[in-house]
């Protein structure tokens, strides 16, 4: 039956994706929730919680306030704390009960902004979607509200620059943990001669992100970054390239970034790079769409083996290859695993994998939280080590 998980984990939720995306930017994020969301997110999904003082709170919604529609309390409490703590911006994110009682988050955000004169955003999360949607909503809102306008984007884009300027969009610990992968992406781009304009949102402050409109091209490293890239394209005509720089994808993405910057064309090269291999998939990868198709492309290139991707998270089917599948629930996934010889997935998938398949542990913080954090490899830097050891 769909919606049941007899033994596997649950992906982090949209409300936590919002928190993870915005964690480092100096804003105040308020989860409109009774209790529990805060400790869940900060325990399992947020490796930066102990050492980085992000202003992330819950509203402590009560039964009586929900029933009586007492939104004034939320507005008061948020405004009061914001005026004391002076965040750079405020984001409200919802949980199931606010959705059920029809809480109008954009309207509440507007009220809070009136009271505090701090940019405020309401996001329609409800804890029933995956973290990918939350990241997407948060970054899209940043791109829409907080990136500074450029008076004449077309002139800015055609001005001579020594190097191509890139925004990296879609970086959170939920997909890349805190193992240095974000730094590896920056290092790779720099070594290829690109200039990092901003990193959404690990290792960049809000000031970098405010100037994201000046970039020549955006690199979308997870699906959570795509909506923001499209918003930046709409606002600044900045093209984007979709892919995570793993193994052979580094060269392909480097070329694609230059091509996109030169032509204004948006490029998603992962699927094309895999299409040359028509072997029956022997390897199955389960995970976030952009990371997984990029890893699939790298594995295919390195081993000449067919790879299928199972994506249990929100994405767009056109990003996936012909052998790939969307499969959200435990019972959706199990049939696709039956003929796999090698399965690359988070360890919490192992109990539903056939015993005769070779299981390659690739922990994913968005699925197993902090449980296997120490095992998560930096595939940007160490793909070859991973491939030689595991495949």
């Amino acid at each position, binding site marked *: 039956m769909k919606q049941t998980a007899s033994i596997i984990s649950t992906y982090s939720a949209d409300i936590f994706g919002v928190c993870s995306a915005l964690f480092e930017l100096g804003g105040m994020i*308020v989860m409109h929730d009774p209790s*529990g969301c805060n400790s869940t997110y*900060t325990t399992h999904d947020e490796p930066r919680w*102990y050492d980085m003082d992000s202003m992330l709170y*819950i509203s402590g919604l009560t039964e009586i306030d929900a029933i009586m529609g007492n939104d004034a309390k939320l507005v008061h409490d948020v405004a009061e704390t914001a005026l*004391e703590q002076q965040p750079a911006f405020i984001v409200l994110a919802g*949980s199931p009960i606010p*959705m059920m009682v029809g809480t109008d988050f954009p309207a509440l955000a507007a009220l809070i902004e009136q009271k505090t004169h701090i940019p405020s955003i309401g996001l329609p999360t409800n804890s029933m979607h995956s973290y990918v949607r939350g990241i997407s909503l948060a970054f899209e809102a940043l791109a829409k509200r907080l990136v500074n306008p450029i008076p004449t984007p077309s002139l800015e884009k055609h001005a001579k620059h020594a190097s191509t300027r890139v925004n990296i969009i879609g970086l959170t610990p939920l997909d890349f943990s805190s193992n240095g992968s974000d730094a590896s992406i920056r290092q790779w781009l720099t070594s290829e001669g690109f200039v990092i304009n901003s990193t959404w949102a690990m290792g960049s402050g809000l000031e970098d992100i405010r100037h994201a409109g000046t970039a020549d091209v955006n690199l979308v490293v997870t699906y959570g970054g795509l909506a923001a890239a499209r918003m930046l394209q709409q606002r600044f005509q900045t093209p984007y390239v979709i892919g995570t720089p793993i193994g052979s994808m580094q060269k392909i993405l480097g070329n694609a970034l230059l091509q996109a910057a030169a032509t204004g064309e948006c490029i998603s090269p992962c699927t094309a790079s895999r299409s040359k291999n028509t072997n029956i998939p022997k390897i199955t990868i389960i995970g976030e769409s952009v990371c997984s198709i990029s890893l699939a492309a790298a594995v295919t290139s390195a081993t000449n083996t067919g790879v299928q991707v199972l994506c249990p998270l929100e994405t767009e089917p056109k990003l996936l290859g012909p052998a790939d599948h969307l499969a959200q629930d435990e019972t959706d996934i199990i049939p696709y695993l039956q003929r796999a010889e090698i399965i690359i997935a988070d360890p*919490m998938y192992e109990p539903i994998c056939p015993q005769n398949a070779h299981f390659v542990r690739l922990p994913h913080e968005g699925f197993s*939280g902090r449980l296997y954090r120490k095992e998560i490899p930096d595939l940007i830097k160490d793909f070859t080590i991973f491939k030689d050891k595991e495949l």
Partner: protein
Amino acid sequence: MLKRINGRPAAGSACVKFKNAEFPEPFPTGLEYSSPARGTWNIVHTGMLVPDSHQIYVCAAGCLRGVVLTAAEMGEMRRFSTIAVRENNILQGDMETLLINGVTDILNRLPVHPRAVFIFTACMHHFMGCDLPPAYAELRKRFPHIAFADCYMDPIMRKSGLTADQSCRKQIYSFLQPQELEPHAINLIGNDLPTLETSELTQLVRQVDWTLRDITRCHTYSEYQSLAKASLNIYYNPAAKPAIKALEERLGQKSLYVPLSYNYEEIAAALQNLAHALGLPPPNYNTHIAQCEGALQKAKALIGTTPIALDYTLTFRPLSLARLLLAHGFNLISLYADTISPEEKHDFYFLQAHHPGLLLYSTKHPNMRLTERQHSEKLLALGQKAAYFTGTNFFVNLVETGGLYGFDGIIRLAGLMCDAFTTAKDTKTLIQMKGWGCTSCL
């Protein structure tokens, strides 16, 4: 805007002197912060105390996330399953069908059926007015050999009735089937951690050779069912009151509250009540009190005037412990607690009158996120939250009393304070572990 001290904001309204604090809610309600100290048990940990049981949670993904990973970190995923509620279920109003079919699907896919199943529904079920009793009736019909218990992960109701913790603590005894009561059998009810054998409470029961049972020591479902044989239930965790009441009504087991305390007279009175129930003459604890005094003097000699901070996760009676420490000359400078329990009302007013300058800090006020968490001199913390908020590596790492009770508990706590004072701990690693005393895969 918050006033800054040494570059970080002051605690502001997150801190109040006892003389200005109000009982039982010393702090204004508002946004809430959650510190990284995670040693206290949650409903998953507590539910796992029932041997051969399985937990099924029916909620939104965000609510499932914390509980599923609690079970995973315990290494107990084989005893844990989930049913994800999605928007279509809210819109279509098929929550009862989802529960019945989801539980059926999960049970049919388990390699072995458990003896007992906890089903945790959520805030959404309350708000939708779900008719859950017929759903449970259908499940009992489909699986007559399995016992089902309705449990709740409904924090939105935390101020409207039983908290999820109280409810779970009650339901872990709901599988007990009525049995003939044994006159010389006694249960210790409501704790997550076993009470030490060396405590006077345990020793009294051993003295009369009665059978003492505790869910924390049950390894099989059969042992668990033996809890139904006790004629008397004793408890010292205040959160166990609903469980005690339910057992009294359902199984006819009498109850006795033997309050945890750090006041010698109160401890002696509780133990004398227990002795009376056991048919013993009132015990004399002068020797024990002298031993406590010796242990506390030894600790004081070592710790001297070093500042001490204490938090509510260490014990059910932090204010009582504060009084004991202050009475023995320890330099207790701060106490971390968000509310004051009714059991501590008397202690609260005593501290207000006699130690008006003692600082009371909230642990979840938003200002606690940004305020200074370092102390300029060595500080001893009692409890994980106190250790976190003061930035010390010298702390007593216990939650929920850690099984310490009575005079023996005081003596052992004094010893732990000495150990903590002399040996630094890895605070960051230790306090982030969930469920102190549980198995952890981290």
